[in-house]
């Protein structure tokens, strides 16, 4: 006990007050009443937070009750018991696969193979008009020329890119919207990596966007995955791989993509 722990010292020397146990028990018992009073009274943001917390607590409680209930009905355990053969330890947690399941799986597999080579996670995208992607920038002495465009979406601009003289530049890609990295998920590893962008393979909206490097949902991008240590069947290290963008980068401020394997 340190010198400043005066409360503990007092308790050690004098003990707790005589009705301490009773008081704590009563307080706990009144706890629910208090809680419900608060639940009735809170409004607005506080209510939202309170209810969320309460909801989580209740979910835990229900789960617990259910678990206690499960322990009582033992039929599931009994079912597993009638496996006649002795199974090695590493196979113990496997359930015997039903015949129907195997069949349906194989059919699915076949369908997949038929579908073709470019089977991407997001096959369809919402079309995006030019008026949404480009903002018209007025120019000229009297601000009446309207041939300049500002790209309003996230873009990838290669490192070697140099701007045209600003006066003649037709497409302006603002620096704030230029991205260099993407969060790429490996679907099999179920892990996400922050990888460098190499280029834009294809923007499904239009070839113009592809050439401008506009990144929208569904765009196929090329990422530098040398850090991942992927190896080709022949043993070479793969460093560039394609990935498809799964979010709206202009709305989220980041690029999320799924690696195409």
């Amino acid at each position, binding site marked *: *006990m*340190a*010198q400043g722990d005066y409360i503990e010292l007092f308790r050690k020397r004098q003990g707790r007050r005589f009705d301490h146990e009773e008081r704590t028990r009563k307080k706990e018992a009144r706890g629910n009443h208090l809680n419900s009073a608060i639940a009735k009274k809170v409004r607005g943001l506080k209510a939202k937070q309170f209810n969320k917390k309460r909801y989580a607590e209740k979910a835990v409680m229900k789960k617990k009750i259910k678990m206690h209930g499960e322990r009582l009905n033992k039929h599931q355990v009994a079912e597993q018991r009638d496996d006649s053969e002795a199974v090695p330890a590493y196979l113990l947690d496997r359930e015997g696969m039903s015949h129907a399941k195997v069949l349906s799986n194989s059919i699915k597999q076949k369908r997949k193979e038929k579908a073709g080579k470019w089977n991407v996670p997001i096959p369809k995208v919402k079309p995006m008009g030019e008026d949404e992607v480009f903002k018209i920038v007025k120019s000229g002495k009297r601000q009446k020329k309207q041939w300049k465009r500002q790209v309003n979406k996230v873009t990838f601009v290669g490192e070697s890119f140099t701007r045209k003289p600003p006066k003649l530049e037709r497409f302006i890609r603002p620096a704030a919207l230029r991205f260099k990295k993407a969060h790429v998920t490996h679907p099999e590893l179920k892990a996400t990596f922050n990888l460098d962008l190499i280029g834009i393979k294809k923007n499904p909206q239009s070839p113009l966007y592809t050439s401008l490097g506009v990144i929208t949902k569904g765009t196929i991008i090329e990422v530098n995955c040398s850090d991942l240590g992927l190896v080709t069947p022949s043993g070479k290290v793969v460093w560039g791989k394609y990935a498809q963008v799964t979010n709206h980068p202009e709305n989220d401020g980041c690029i999320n993509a799924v690696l195409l394997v």
Partner: protein
Amino acid sequence: MVVYNFKKIETVPTAADFIDVVLSKTQRKTPTVVHPGYNIVRIRQFYMRKVKFTHTAYSEKLTQILTDFPRLDDIHPFYADLINVLYDRDHFKLALGQMNIARQLIDRVGRDYAKLLKYGDSLYRCKTLKRAALGRMCTIMKRQKGALEYLEQVRRHMMRLPSIDPTTRTIIVAGYPNVGKSSFVNKVTRANVEVQPYAFTTKSLYVGHMDHKYMRWQVIDTPGVLDKPLEERNTIEMQSITALAHLHCCVLYVVDISEQCGFSIQQQVALFDSIRPLFHNKPLVVAINKIDVRTEADLTEAERAALRTLETNGATIVYMSTFTEEGVMDVKSAACDLLLAQRVEQKMASTKVESVINRIRTHWQLKTPAWVNDIIPEIMDGKNIMDFVDPDIDRLLAELEREEEQRVELAEMEAEEQDEDMDEERVEAQNTVRALAKSIRKKKGILKEKARMAKKNNHPTLSRAVAARTKSLGEFVEHMGQMGVRTASKALSNLRGKATLKGGADALPARERRAATAGASTERRGRSPTRGGDEDAMSTGGSSYADSMVGHKRARGDGKKANQVPRDRSSTARDAAKVARSRSPSASGLRDEAQQVKLLKLGRNKAFKMSKNGRIESDRRIPDLKPKHLYSGKRGNGKTDWR
């Protein structure tokens, strides 16, 4: 001086609380209503404000944490080491480092999203961007969960650390467990340390304070230490070691003579030897405790020899019993005196000694040293001794008197000499000087009084430029005359000429003009062919100095001859002309002077009435708040404030 108390560190919230606090703060303190119909700039600004607010709220709180916790490199090594022992230096630094990194990351997120929001083209896009920004900031904080919890625990523990001042007079009580360290501290201070008959009762540092020789002393009770290598020592023992290693103090090593503590005297001496490097350069007192159980006489020869080795190592051995309180005060004073002597010695050796040396008392040199202890009475033979303390006082007084006499004689002799060779001429010269001095004094007095008057009245003051303009020519001439400049008409003809040329007779200020009209009303104003050359005519506003060309030339010649004319003549002339212009009736749109005079009179009458009523225009005016014409009758189709 730095005061170490860590009680002021603010609470470190848990990660979840942190997020709740910041987000609800954002919700409370930023506007909450926005519509898609608003101007896009306004929408952008609405969301940008939210992002920036959250960003600053986070970084403020993190900065608070970073500044509150002490930086181990900056604090006293004792505390740095204590923190290392108690909370693990690396862990502590890592946790604070993580806070710093979190702050940087949040800064970056805030900046990036503020930039992205600039290009938001719809409410929806701005809103999702804001949501992403706040979400990312909160995620960064959520990752700091462990560090925040650790810091909160450290904070709670640090708050309870005893406030030890590492620079003051300190006595550290050390020794094996259960030898009676805490009992001693309880006896000399009010620290109220726990005393129990088992080992390791005391598990942390305790500090108590006592008085000795009118000074405050800090007594530190340490946990007992066992005789083992440093690496094997546990946290409890390490606290004692840290205190011993870093505090400049007197070490009081307690030895249990009765061996009730479970360690023999030889073992206790061995421990002393093994931790002796920590006592280097410190005054040492070995207190042999529990002499009520076993006295010094009961010691065996081997034990005596062991204790003697302590003495040879420079320790002072004192016997005590905290049970009977025998010798406790001796131990206390022995320790205090040793430390005090050492501290004084060090102070004398240091460079700062000059500033305190006058505070150190020097002792009288007496014939026989035995007299030092004599008590000096205050009154002796009915006289205060203090009156006769200075042995030289008679001699000094006599000297002083002699000097005074000599001076008086000298002064008399000089006066006689002066009386003799005073002749007429000198008297006259002296008189003129006196008169001059008198006039100067008088003038000074007048000026002073004038300044005082000017300050006293509570009217708006004129700016310097305006004041200069309102000065009349006559005043100027008079002033120059008083200054010793020749103001005869010849000398100033240039000035006069200029003034007349510019504004005619109106060039002259009103007062002079009035005099002029009184004196020569029949004369035509402005240009007069006659020239009044004498001083008198000039002072009454001389209306005739039109012959400017001649006057000009002459004045110049005069100026060259006699250096009495003001140096910057042209400027004075210009000033006078300015006065003339501002005052002429034609300039203010009036027909002639008579009209101007009339106007003045009318104005004065008006002002008189006003001031008599106690009102000044537009100042204390109370307007008619309910004018009759607006509150009576029916309303037609017209407006409510105009009928």
